[in-house]
């Protein structure tokens, strides 16, 4: 076949199926083409989660609420963890909100491929959609508990502030972090079911390493850079700053260390996508 005939042939054919060599392209355009399916998977996740539960969506509110009450009693009242002048319940809830979103999204994303094994072995679609839908479907729960936060802030008569406009940005950072780690774990989970045991443990340890029940000011200044290595520090501290900024005694707008957090989560996201894409071709064979 001459060169021109070959190029003509590839023009003529819509899809070329061949073994991928080296690193696979990210295929973000394909994800976009399948956005309707993504929407349906998110919708299914949300719909199914509360079907045949007596309390339904109330669970979304109940869980962080009980967490907050326990934290307030234990750490706010008994241990007197400093909350920088803000009422401890709001202080704790402001961080619990993005943390719970992150933890449940990470958990869902990392088990998503295994849970969709029947789809993966029977239908083609960009596999990235599966963990992505796990991360997106958590947003509904987030929105519901966010309303609870609003109620809490009303109760404590906390004023609205312009810094709240930054909230979507911090939420996005939580999403990116959950997706990045979720992609790694989901792809590894196809091969090693150890991930199923690892994730709950990881989430537990991670929560204590993140300023959720305490503020970052509790950590001595010279160790604080260590916290910045954890992108979730940026998220929870960011939430507190945006919601309670003016109230916090040491209200520091996100600074240099925050950029480190962003950098790290982007790094995890990109490496996660590359890893995911290059192991994707064997998913259907080994799952």
């Amino acid at each position: 076949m001459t060169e021109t005939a070959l190029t003509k042939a590839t023009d003529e054919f819509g899809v070329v199926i061949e073994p991928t060599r080296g690193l696979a392209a990210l295929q973000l355009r394909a994800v976009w083409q399948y956005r309707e399916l993504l929407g349906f998977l998110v919708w299914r996740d949300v719909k199914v989660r509360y079907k045949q539960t007596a309390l339904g969506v109330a669970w979304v509110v109940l869980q962080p609420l009980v967490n907050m009450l326990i934290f307030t009693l234990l750490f706010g009242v008994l241990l007197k963890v400093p909350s920088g002048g803000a009422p401890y319940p709001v202080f704790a809830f402001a961080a619990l909100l993005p943390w719970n979103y992150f933890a449940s999204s990470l958990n869902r994303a990392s088990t998503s491929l295994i849970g969709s094994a029947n789809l993966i072995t029977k239908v083609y679609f960009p596999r990235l959609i599966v963990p992505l839908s796990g991360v997106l479907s958590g947003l509904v729960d987030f929105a519901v508990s966010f309303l609870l936060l609003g109620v809490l802030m009303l109760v404590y008569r906390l004023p609205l502030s312009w810094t709240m406009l930054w909230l979507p940005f911090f939420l996005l950072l939580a999403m990116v972090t959950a997706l990045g780690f979720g992609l790694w774990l989901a792809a590894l989970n196809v091969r090693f079911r150890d991930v199923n045991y690892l994730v709950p443990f990881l989430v537990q340890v991670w929560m204590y390493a993140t300023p959720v029940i305490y503020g970052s000011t509790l950590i001595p200044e010279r160790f604080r850079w260590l916290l910045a290595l954890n992108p979730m520090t940026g998220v929870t501290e960011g939430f507190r700053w945006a919601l309670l900024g003016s109230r916090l005694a040491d209200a520091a707008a996100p600074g240099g260390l925050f950029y480190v957090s962003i950098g790290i989560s982007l790094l995890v996201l990109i490496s996660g996508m590359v890893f995911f894409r290059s192991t994707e071709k064997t998913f259907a064979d080994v799952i």
Partner: protein
Amino acid sequence: MTVAIKVENLSKKYVIGAAQERQDTLRDWLVAAGRSLRRRPTAENEFWALRDVSFEVQRGEVVGVIGRNGAGKSTLLKILSRITEPTSGRAYINGRVGSLLEVGTGFHPELTGRENIFLNGAILGMRRTEIARKFDEIVAFAEIEKFLDTPVKRYSSGMYVRLAFAVAAHLEPEILLVDEVLAVGDAAFQKKCLGKMGDVAREGRTVLFVSHNMSAMQRLCQNAIFLQDGRLSSYDDVQKIADLYFGTKGYNTSVSFEPKPSLPIFLRKIEIVDCSTNLPTAGKIEISDGFFIRVTYEVTKKIKGVHTFLRIQASNGETVLSTGDCDVNPAKLLEDRIPGVYTALVKIPPYLLGTGDYSVTWSAGIPFQINYDVEWNVVNFRVLDSLSERGEFMHFRKPGYLGLNLEWQYVVG
């Protein structure tokens, strides 16, 4: 004509070790990795599911893919559906592909029929607007109007399958890849599905159709691909492929006879008929299918007390079963049989005969007095079990002439 599918030297290798001793945990993997350092993967634990397969399918063609278990049919479809990657070679696909490797993929038991139609449609690659447009048609095809808002976990298995197939049947890709999905549902629904598939083919779409059901394939396809041990053994007219598939011996499932007007009763035609298509089978019958023996005979003068008989014999000559028209339904034929052409349909139920080769003998006469006409071992067929778990995965044949599955009642203690 333009080419819709072009496959060039497509190969797919599986490493059997990885499949057999599953490395599900890190520990298993470390052990396996340590082992493989010492022992490189050899040809022994490699398995070529497909090897150097090349073919072309023109636009608008309906091509069947047939082969025995493990011949690579499903692997081929999985590669063309982009579910798994080939090890080498390439395939070009020109047009929007819809693949049906299973019906009801992604159905969620907790969701209602209505919700599952949209979900499943999206999974199969339909746009939301497209599903909405065909929604009523899908519901009507599935015959589940009343249960639209019931969670599908409360559906009977028949309803579930009908709904699943209805969604799939309304997929309108330019190229349709279908795997064995017709092996579901009751006979009436299967017939409806075959009809729908035929429509798809007539609309000028390209179809690649993998099935064990040779008679369905012969009805739907012009050409067929025969895969043997991962290699393309032949790509030809479907009739030739059918002959090839059934081996050189072949099975006679339809035999006609010249009239013998000197006899008061004589055989005109005898056939082994597929239950769902009402056509002669190709000779291989799934144990789960059941079939008819259709007998046409002529009576030339009024006769009294005549029975017609069928005798089924195994390949070693042992008679497995005899049946006569006096068995269950005498229909007063025993008294007076007036001249005319009679057609009798005898149903052999599924799982009556065990797997193996059989032949049929027909005779007519008055017991203990006279035999008017007899045709020994005129038609023959094979009963096989390739669809059940036993046949498909365990590759063992249950010996015996009877295929009945019996109930085992246990007392454990």
